[in-house]
């Protein structure tokens, strides 16, 4: 574990911030140039992040201190295996999403595209910031930046519903993070004099000074503070945020934002409290209950949604809780599984959102009941959808299986057999809300009269700029099943570090 000073984390964060400036000044007049900046930034960012993989797998930790406020309180970046994993996924998917966004925005001729790309770039910077933070303080800083700069993206359409959704989004995310997370963090600092993550928990050394009740309260404050992880009852913002343009839902509300939430939740569980304290106080169990409830309830709600994006949103809510569930089991395999799930769910869910966007662009349909026979019209898109859905359900040749496998292993390690039943039940529910779409798309006849002209077996795909990215991510879910080595390596590294074996 040698710590190396390096500018790379700062570079990775600032590259898209600088790009945001360029994008802003290019503006609507030179839109091609503007898009070049986006893609350039995405590629550079991914290159920087990827260049750190080697060092981290070698056991090095890259560190950079931006500003030091007080001893124990600084804005500091530290690249460890866990953070790198998240950064890797987010930055890689940003490249793909950039192309997709360009296709989506231009085809629909959306307004305020400059604002959209600027905010997107900043959001990615902030997500990198969350990934690379070495302490709770820095994490909170970037966590809030994410909230603020995604707000315009949610309100992008400027319609009353969009405003309503954005308000809800802001109220949930800001209210919980300022109201709970900040307080919890300050309490942590006031007790321990530091907010630095440590692999066996900040509180472990101070165990004797703090009472159990107090720790429990702090833990709940923290968990309530990460509303981005969408654990019930703080999930309602996610479906509301679906008014955003689909690329936003795809990258931010399936990868960057919500994963930042889960990521922070995991940081808190593993690095602030440490698994020893949690298992001693039985808090892991409580969290397991909350997560299990969320998984089931969200799946059941998803069944009843007719809007495609709303169904995907509830599916996201339930899938995010898998990750929390994995961590809450506090056993090595479960933690490995939950970290893997961050990556695998990202690929699967982004594919699904991409397809939803593609369908909307090609046919302007948003409801599941209208999707009959669409598979004939958009074969590539719907194939990708099928792959994504299978991965969500967790059927073996798809990536989603791997992470569930590890979580099940973990629940056996933790002696929690009901969790296995829960996971099986949830897989069934997943199948129940995804497969009918696939069935309807490929096997039902297009029944509606007003779409007859397109329905005569003509292929009517979305633009290539959109279809290629979604095929790529769909392939990704397949490929990851066979070669998950990088992610698996990183995840196992984290799990061994925090569990100590």
């Amino acid at each position, binding site marked *: 574990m040698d710590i190396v000073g390096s500018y790379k984390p700062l570079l990775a964060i600032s590259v898209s911030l600088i790009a945001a400036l360029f994008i802003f000044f290019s503006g609507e007049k030179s839109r091609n140039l503007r898009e070049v900046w986006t893609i350039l930034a995405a590629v550079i960012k991914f290159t920087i992040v990827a260049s750190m993989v080697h060092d981290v797998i070698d056991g090095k930790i890259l560190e950079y201190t931006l500003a030091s406020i007080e001893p124990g309180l600084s804005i500091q970046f530290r690249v460890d295996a866990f953070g790198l994993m998240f950064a890797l996924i987010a930055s890689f998917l940003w490249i793909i999403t950039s192309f997709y966004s360009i296709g989506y925005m231009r085809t629909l001729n959306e307004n305020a595209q400059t604002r959209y790309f600027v905010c997107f770039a900043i959001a990615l910077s902030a997500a990198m910031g969350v990934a690379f933070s070495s302490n709770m303080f820095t994490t909170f800083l970037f966590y809030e930046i994410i909230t603020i700069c995604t707000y315009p993206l949610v309100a992008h359409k400027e319609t009353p519903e969009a405003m309503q959704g954005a308000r809800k989004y802001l109220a949930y995310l800001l209210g919980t993070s*300022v109201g709970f997370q*900040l307080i919890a963090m300050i309490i942590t600092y006031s007790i321990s004099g530091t907010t630095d993550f440590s692999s066996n928990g900040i509180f472990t050394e101070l165990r004797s000074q703090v009472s159990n009740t107090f720790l429990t309260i702090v833990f709940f404050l923290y968990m309530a503070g990460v509303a981005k992880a969408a654990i019930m009852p703080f999930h309602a913002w996610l479906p509301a945020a679906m008014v955003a343009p689909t690329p936003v839902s795809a990258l931010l509300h399936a990868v960057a934002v919500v994963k930042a939430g889960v990521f922070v939740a995991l940081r808190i569980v593993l690095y602030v409290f440490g698994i020893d304290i949690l298992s001693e106080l039985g808090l892991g169990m409580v969290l397991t209950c909350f997560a299990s409830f969320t998984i089931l309830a969200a799946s059941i709600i998803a069944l009843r949604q007719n809007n495609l994006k709303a169904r995907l949103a509830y599916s996201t809510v339930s899938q995010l809780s898998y990750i929390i569930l994995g961590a809450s089991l506090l056993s090595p395999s479960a933690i490995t599984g939950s970290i893997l799930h961050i990556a695998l769910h990202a690929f699967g869910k982004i594919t699904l959102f991409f397809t939803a966007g593609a369908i909307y662009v090609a046919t302007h349909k948003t409801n599941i009941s209208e999707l009959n026979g669409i598979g004939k019209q958009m074969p590539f898109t719907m194939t990708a959808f099928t792959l994504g859905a299978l991965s969500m359900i967790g059927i073996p040749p798809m990536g989603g299986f791997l992470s569930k496998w590890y979580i099940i292993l973990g629940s056996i390690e933790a002696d929690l057999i009901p969790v296995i039943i829960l996971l099986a039940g949830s897989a069934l529910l997943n199948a129940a809300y995804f497969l009918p779409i696939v069935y309807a798309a490929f096997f039902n006849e297009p029944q509606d009269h007003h779409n007859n002209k397109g329905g005569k077996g003509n292929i009517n795909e979305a633009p290539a700029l959109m279809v290629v990215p979604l095929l790529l991510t769909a392939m990704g879910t397949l490929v990851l099943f066979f070669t998950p080595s990088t992610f698996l390596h990183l995840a196992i590294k984290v799990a061994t570090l925090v569990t100590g074996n």
Partner: protein
Amino acid sequence: MIVLEHAAILVVVIPLLVSFFNVIIGLWKKNLCYPMTVLTLGFCLILTVNIIVSVIEIGTFSYRLGGWTPPWGIEYVIDHLNAYIAIIVSFISFIFAIYSRKSIEKEISSEKIPYFYTLYLLLAAGLLGITLTGDLFNIFVFLEITSLSAYALIAIGDENAPLASFNYLIMGTIGACFYLLGVGYLYISTGSLNIADLAGLLPGLYHSKTIIAAFGFFIVGIAVKIAFFPFHIWLPDAYTHAPSAVSAFVASTMTKVGAYVMIRIMYTVFEPRFSTDILPITAILGWIAAAAIIFGSILALAQKDIKRILSYIIIAEVGYIVMGVSIANKSGFTGAVLHIMNDALMMACLFSVAGAIIYRTGSRDIYTFGGLGRKMPFTMAALFVSAVSIAGLPPTAGFFSKWYLLLGTIYEKKWIFAGSLIFSSLVNAVIFFRILEIVYFKKHPQTGLIKEVPMSMLIPILITAGGILITGFYSGDIISSIIRFAVPREF
């Protein structure tokens, strides 16, 4: 070199003298007043930078007026705290001197412009005088110079301004008189007016009723001056109806300097143990501050006039500072002092943005701001930055001071105080995101001809906004090199 040696007094005297030159020059050539004012305040800014550099290097130093030795003569004592406040005041006054040109041209008749700059410089001189002097009575004199010029400046605003200014005058005079009474009591019992001297003389007299009464008068007097909660009624009217440049300058400096005087009296003239143990005023102040924060925020939420919203927010912000002071521990005090700077920057930015909007649209009603996000992108970006800061969200400056305030309350286990801080953060977020939503996402039919404000207004706005963004990251340096030394030793 002579300039640097005498920087402490020159900072006060030069604006004072130039302000009177301004009148004479104004009779001859009106256009010269503006550059004179800007140059003078720029010079003051350079001097205060020098002052703070030498304070950091050599520590506290003093300047004797007329060469008389301290307890008899007037002494200017420069330590970390007032060097810090002085640089804030001179920076803000310099910024708004630049800003004022265009906005004042639009709001008052051209004959009165020299008088405006005269009063403006007097106000700046008074504020700098309050911060730098080490003599209680001198503080009173400068307090009144400041207040009188503020009354006059506010009265040149819109049609309701004279009435608002009159109410302010009555309240302000009561405050000043109470302060004067406090000075009188201290003088009767110790025979000294020098702060350092008093600090040495007073501890033996702490249980005397006269001293306790004096302390009470001081606190009430200053509370009126800084619009602390039950005495806040004059503030919203006065700041709403004043000309934009004036309300920006006055709002961002006067209450802060008043808070500085409060800190001086509570923790320099008196020892901290006086206000925590002997006369437990900190507990009372803390609760009132919590009430101020909550009421200020709620009342701000109920307004739709942008300047009135900001005025009520000032009341809440004053509550923040007083709360930090009254928590009486290291973090709370650090937070309060840091918040003086951050709040000065935020208020400067917000009021100047409000001024810019009024300059272009002529409306103060937030519901008519639709579509301004496109027409005035830079101004609105500044609004966004300061809104984020005032809601206490990172990475802006407001977050860092709020962090310290919260930390202070939590060290003392005062959960309700912490709750009120959080509450106000959230309410501020609601207020400003409502405005931002209108600005960026609503359309408004009459905004066709509106464009960005002139450079002389835009640059100050952007500088303050940049300051809000950047100073947060340097809070660590500011604390370790300045504020750390200003914290009373007992904490």
